[in-house]
């Protein structure tokens, strides 16, 4: 518990900063994850995904705008901003406009409990993990609003598929995370990281210190792919059958909003998996005798580095899978969820309980 005294120091200091009656510090605390999502979605999300997919398919990817195509994303943003904002005549105007907003807010709200390092977290709730799972519900409503509001067969089918998928995969995902909560004995995201940090680095992480943790880890990883509508579970936006699923009718910045929401929730599930099973901001390096590598690489700044790197690693794996695996059929998707992942999640739950009692 060497980090305990310095927990949440930055965000607490910011939160106490008021401008008259106006809590400016709290607004800044909320703005930091927002700016982070935008920056990461622009650089690593869009550009990185295009480059990674290109290298996996032995192509070059974007190369024209700027050196190695680095400015391609900026050009894309300029293009999106200039696009006409089309609302179809037959669409339900209100739901059509509010859909992408609700979806983005839903994906952004989960960042409240994501610790960006030991010193910064939006709110260190004692129900943090539960909140992070539950708030996804808002995203579901956003998808339904945009899918139904578009008044388009493809959009409605995409929305219905997406919601059925997210709601079903929430069950194995929640049970797998419950195993993590049992190991840590807490639901607070910061306490998860504290419980997994120590002088031996990655040996303290649940994935390596607990022989049964790999099962809930795998189950949660697979379910998280489905919850973020990523391949091989991207049937809600299956291009070959549904054009683009629930965002078929969207143009310009509303379209960009869906992408921000998707990249936001990709980072969120990667953050959750690295916090629950891989120590969050805890450094992976061990102390070797007097050579205190772990102590050197811990602290607020290093913690921020580690958690972002761990999450980026999982986002890379998500992209890797997307360009490797074919898409599942609807019935295969439901089979995998209800007849494979859910029973194994229960097995993992019992095994974790037995391990926690008799270890």
């Amino acid at each position, binding site marked *: 518990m060497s980090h305990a005294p310095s927990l949440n120091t930055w965000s607490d200091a910011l939160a106490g900063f008021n401008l008259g009656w106006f809590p400016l510090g*709290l607004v800044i605390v909320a703005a930091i994850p927002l700016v982070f999502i935008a920056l990461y979605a622009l650089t690593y999300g869009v550009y990185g995904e295009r480059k990674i997919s290109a290298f996996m398919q032995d192509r070059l990817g974007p190369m024209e705008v700027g050196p190695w195509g680095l400015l391609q994303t900026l050009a894309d943003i300029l293009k999106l901003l200039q696009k006409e904002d089309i609302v179809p005549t037959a669409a339900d105007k209100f739901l059509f406009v509010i859909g992408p907003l609700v979806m983005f807010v839903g994906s952004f709200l989960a960042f409240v409990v994501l610790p960006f390092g030991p010193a910064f977290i939006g709110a260190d709730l004692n129900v943090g993990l539960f909140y992070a799972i539950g*708030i996804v*519900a808002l995203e579901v*409503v956003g998808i*339904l609003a945009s899918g139904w509001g578009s008044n388009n067969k493809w959009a*409605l089918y995409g929305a219905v598929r997406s919601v059925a998928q997210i709601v079903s995969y929430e069950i194995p995902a929640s049970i797998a995370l419950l195993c993590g909560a049992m190991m840590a004995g*807490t639901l*607070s995201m910061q306490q998860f990281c504290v419980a997994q940090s120590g002088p031996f680095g990655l040996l303290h992480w649940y994935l390596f210190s607990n022989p049964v943790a790999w099962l809930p880890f795998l189950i949660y990883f697979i379910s998280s792919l489905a919850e973020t509508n990523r391949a091989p579970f991207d049937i809600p936006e299956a291009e070959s059958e549904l054009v683009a699923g629930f965002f078929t009718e969207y143009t310009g910045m509303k379209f960009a909003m869906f992408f921000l929401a998707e990249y936001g929730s990709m980072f969120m599930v990667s953050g959750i998996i690295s916090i629950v099973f891989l120590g969050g901001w805890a450094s992976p390096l061990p102390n070797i005798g007097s050579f205190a590598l772990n102590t050197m690489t811990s602290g607020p700044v290093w913690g921020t580095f580690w958690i972002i790197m761990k999450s980026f690693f999982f986002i890379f794996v998500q992209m890797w899978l997307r360009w490797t695996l074919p898409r599942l059929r609807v019935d295969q998707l439901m089979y995998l969820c209800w007849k494979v992942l859910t029973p194994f999640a229960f097995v993992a739950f019992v095994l974790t309980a037995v391990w926690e009692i008799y270890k």
Partner: protein
Amino acid sequence: MNQLTIAIIFYVFAAVTVLSAAFVVFSKNIIYSAFALLFTFFGVAALYVFLSADFIAVTQVVVYVGGILVLLLFGVMFTNTIMQTELKTDVMHVVPGTLLLLLMIAGMLYTFYTTGDWMPGETQLQGSIVQRVGFETMSRFMLPFEMASIVLLVALLGAAFLARYDKAHKNEH
């Protein structure tokens, strides 16, 4: 945060809850009613947070938004003629309804004004609320907890039975 800021935030959430609930009731379009429920549920969750009941607030979001609202929206969206349906019922009991409303308001106002101080809990909450909830469900409220789980299990079995692909029935046709 000072008292004023907290009061402003509270009134914003209270207004969201009440106005969206009114919209649910008065809207002619059933789809809008269903979507307005989202804001009502979130407003209520926020009010729970003001009562320091974090766990209940998150449960409210999980159960009502994630479960009931999504189910409701599914039902509404799969009903083809939903936009043409006349929502008003034929039978309207205006006088008894108004009387009931006035009685309820009177009852609530009476309770509000006669309850001198709202009693603070005798034992203050120590540490994590989740831990406390866990201990209570596993000790003092064990029986209700288990009964709720049996009721849910029966509901699950019933739903699975209703949705089952009926082979015998299929062969008759």
